[in-house]
């Protein structure tokens, strides 16, 4: 146990360092954007949190499938951990967006494709966590949530595509967006570094949350044993 705690402290320290360096890079290493100025620097965390949230939600989807095919509780624990952590990153993404939009677009929010679909995705995963709380029995909770999680993940591209077809104002993709688009190489390097930092942070949070879920399960089992005696 103490050896595990030791690696955990080292790992946490490393993550803290990585996030600090990412912050430094976003503010001081990346060049200033010509028209938007300093506010553009929020982009490095805004985008990397969005990507990280997507990665976490994809992990929820994979754990849901894995749970239904193996019925091992571990996959359920991973699913709920990834959903919570993904939701946290998604919330950061949805809050940094308006902070950037107000000076640049002149408005806090607009019902554009990416904003709306991210918001709907956020609502779907809030629903996933809510559903978990309202299902008392552990086996049923894991099974029903896995089914819901798969439905929700299938819906995300449909939401995105429908709203994209409908109206869009968000800046077009600057990475892989075709000719005439693209990031300054230094900006790109900082963005990828920030993403790496966020992914590592996600791993740390995921690990902690997973251990918490495992401990909760252990406590529930002990309590059941105690009351059976």
């Amino acid at each position: 146990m103490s050896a595990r705690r030791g690696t955990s402290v080292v790992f946490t320290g490393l993550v803290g360092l990585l996030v600090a360096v990412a912050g430094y890079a976003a503010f001081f290493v990346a060049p200033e954007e010509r028209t938007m100025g300093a506010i553009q620097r929020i982009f490095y965390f805004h985008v990397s949190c969005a990507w990280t949230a997507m990665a976490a939600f994809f992990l929820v989807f994979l754990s849901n499938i894995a749970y239904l095919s193996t019925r091992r509780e571990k996959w359920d624990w991973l699913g709920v951990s990834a959903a919570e952590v993904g939701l946290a990153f998604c919330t950061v993404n949805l809050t940094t967006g308006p902070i950037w939009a107000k000076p640049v677009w002149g408005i806090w929010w607009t019902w554009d494709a990416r904003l709306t679909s991210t918001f709907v995705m956020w609502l779907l995963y809030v629903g996933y966590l809510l559903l978990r709380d309202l299902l008392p029995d552990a086996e049923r909770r894991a099974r029903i949530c896995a089914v819901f999680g798969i439905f929700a993940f299938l819906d995300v591209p449909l939401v995105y595509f429908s709203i994209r077809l409908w109206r869009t104002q968000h800046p077009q993709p600057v990475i892989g967006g075709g000719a005439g688009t693209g990031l300054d190489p230094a900006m790109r390097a900082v963005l990828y570094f920030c993403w790496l930092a966020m992914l590592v942070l996600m791993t740390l949070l995921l690990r902690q949350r997973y251990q918490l879920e495992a401990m909760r399960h252990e406590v529930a089992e002990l309590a059941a044993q105690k009351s059976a005696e």
Partner: protein
Amino acid sequence: MSTLRAALVIFEKELRLELRTRELLNATIIFVLLVLVLFSFSFDPTVEESRRIGPGLLWMAFLFAASLMLHPSFAREQANDTLAALRLAPVEPFAILFGKILANFAFLLATELVMVPVFAVLYNVAILPALGRLLAVMLLGTFGVSVAGTAFSAISAQARLRELLLPLLLLPLLAPVLIASVECTAGLLAAPPELPGEWLKFLIGFDVVFFAASYLLCEYLLEE
């Protein structure tokens, strides 16, 4: 018994159950009427405004109605644990879900067929020039709502606070159906009416994706 025939048996059972009392249909129709009346206070219902806002209003009313109406579909099987009995039948579990999807589809469609003319009269919207195409949009949109809604009714029936939970889970999921159906309806209510083909294809795509997902996940959903 083939899955389709078993599904039709379930469908018939649901239909007979509902037609004995008609309470679900009556309540849903009145609910949609209520929403249509209340919405008239939120904007100035002139002909142009109605044409602009009407399609969204109509589909919102249908979605809210569906999220309430779909709840008993599985919840009422719980009173006497009849779902367990249904599961004992030597048929594919999907037959049960499919039968219920068909029944809910029929109930929702019946509600819409009653309410669309009422909507047209109350909001001064011409539906006759594009009636056939409007019906096609209603069929596709309602099928999508029924498929996802019936599966989610099975989900929420197993949880606490289930009446409240179903709309919370279902409505965000149905956002794409809402947009596509509203866009199609808006095109058809314009003068001259025009059906946006890409949205119709999108509706078909949604229906196919969620029908396939329900088929694949049904086994886990109805496990006892």
